[in-house]
């Protein structure tokens, strides 16, 4: 009992430290937010750190040659790790879901992760910490409640998109975005096989531009109609040319091939820049129209 109170006191003392650490991590994450993944890279970190004593206990059991203890601790830690990984996956899915205007209902990874963590807590409380089965179940339920309160539940509705004709085109939009994402990933993969610093930096710039356009399309899928040529012709063409160059230049390294590829890349970069500008201008035009409509309405009602 004394040990339990001592451990609870230590855990409560650790709260301000954990909160301080979370705040610090949030500041670091905010600093890198605009240049890396939009989701918080430290989301769910707590669930990776807290079960570490169980891993230490498993190592201790291994050192003492305690087979039963090793089995119990290893199973408990594996469950904790599985739950933490599912939870992190759920947090990333949720961040993607929040960022997009059109999205399918994500898999309930957060709920599954919380359930697995609850199971792990109950199992460790019963087999390793020596609590009664009833008390272990209570520990598990409280852990699930803690996960729910901290991380929330998974989104349960799909964000659907209907075009101007009133037709539901969610699947078409998602398919186009997934295809564009796979083309960008293929270009990134080819960069790893090309050993030319100048060409690689140019390709990275092109990938960056393509990602910016894709983000704009994710945020406003109405732009998809305007960017159809970019998705179907330019991006796919850029992927094919880059893959072809990555395969060929290792075997046949001629200056002529390099020059031709450089010229193609310059054209692609220019076209991608124009496409991005076109989408920005379209947004501006939409905003102009909205302002004009609002001004007309205000004038009609005698406000202005």
């Amino acid at each position: 009992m004394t040990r339990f109170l001592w451990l609870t006191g230590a855990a409560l003392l650790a709260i301000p430290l954990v909160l301080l650490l979370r705040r610090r991590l949030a500041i670091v994450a905010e600093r890198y937010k605009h240049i890396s993944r939009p989701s918080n890279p430290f989301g769910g970190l707590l669930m990776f750190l807290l079960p570490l004593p169980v891993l230490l206990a498993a190592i201790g059991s291994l050192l003492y040659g305690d087979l039963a203890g090793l089995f119990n601790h290893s199973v408990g830690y594996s469950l904790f790790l599985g739950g933490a990984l599912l939870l992190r996956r759920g947090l990333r899915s949720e961040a993607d879901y929040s960022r997009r205007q059109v999205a399918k209902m994500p898999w309930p990874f957060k709920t599954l992760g919380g359930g697995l963590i609850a199971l792990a807590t109950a199992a460790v409380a019963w087999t390793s910490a020596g609590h009664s089965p009833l008390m272990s179940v209570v520990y598990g339920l409280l852990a699930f409640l803690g996960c729910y309160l901290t991380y929330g539940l998974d989104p349960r509705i799909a964000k659907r998109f209907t075009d101007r004709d009133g037709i539901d085109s969610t699947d078409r939009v998602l398919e186009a975005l997934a295809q564009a994402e796979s083309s960008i990933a293929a270009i990134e993969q080819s960069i790893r096989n090309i050993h030319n610093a100048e060409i690689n930096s140019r390709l990275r710039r092109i990938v960056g531009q393509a990602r910016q356009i894709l983000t704009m399309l994710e945020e406003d899928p109405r732009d998809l109609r305007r960017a159809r040529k970019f998705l179907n012709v330019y991006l796919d063409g850029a992927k094919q040319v880059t893959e072809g160059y990555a395969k060929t230049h290792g075997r046949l390294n001629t200056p002529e091939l390099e020059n031709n590829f450089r010229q193609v890349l310059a054209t692609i970069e220019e076209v991608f820049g124009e496409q991005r500008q076109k989408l920005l201008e379209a947004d501006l035009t939409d905003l102009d129209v909205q302002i004009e409509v609002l001004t007309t309405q205000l004038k009609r009602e005698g406000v202005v």
Partner: protein
Amino acid sequence: MSDFVRKFIGVLLILATVGVVSCQALAAPEPAALATPSVLSGPRG
């Protein structure tokens, strides 16, 4: 309940369950080490 309070209670619960149970697993004496089962240690004498 505000978002901060909800999250704070959630973190508190996680620390009080996952954190405490993990530390107890590390600190508790191994039952198997205190009373070694004959299956694992083999017959003595």
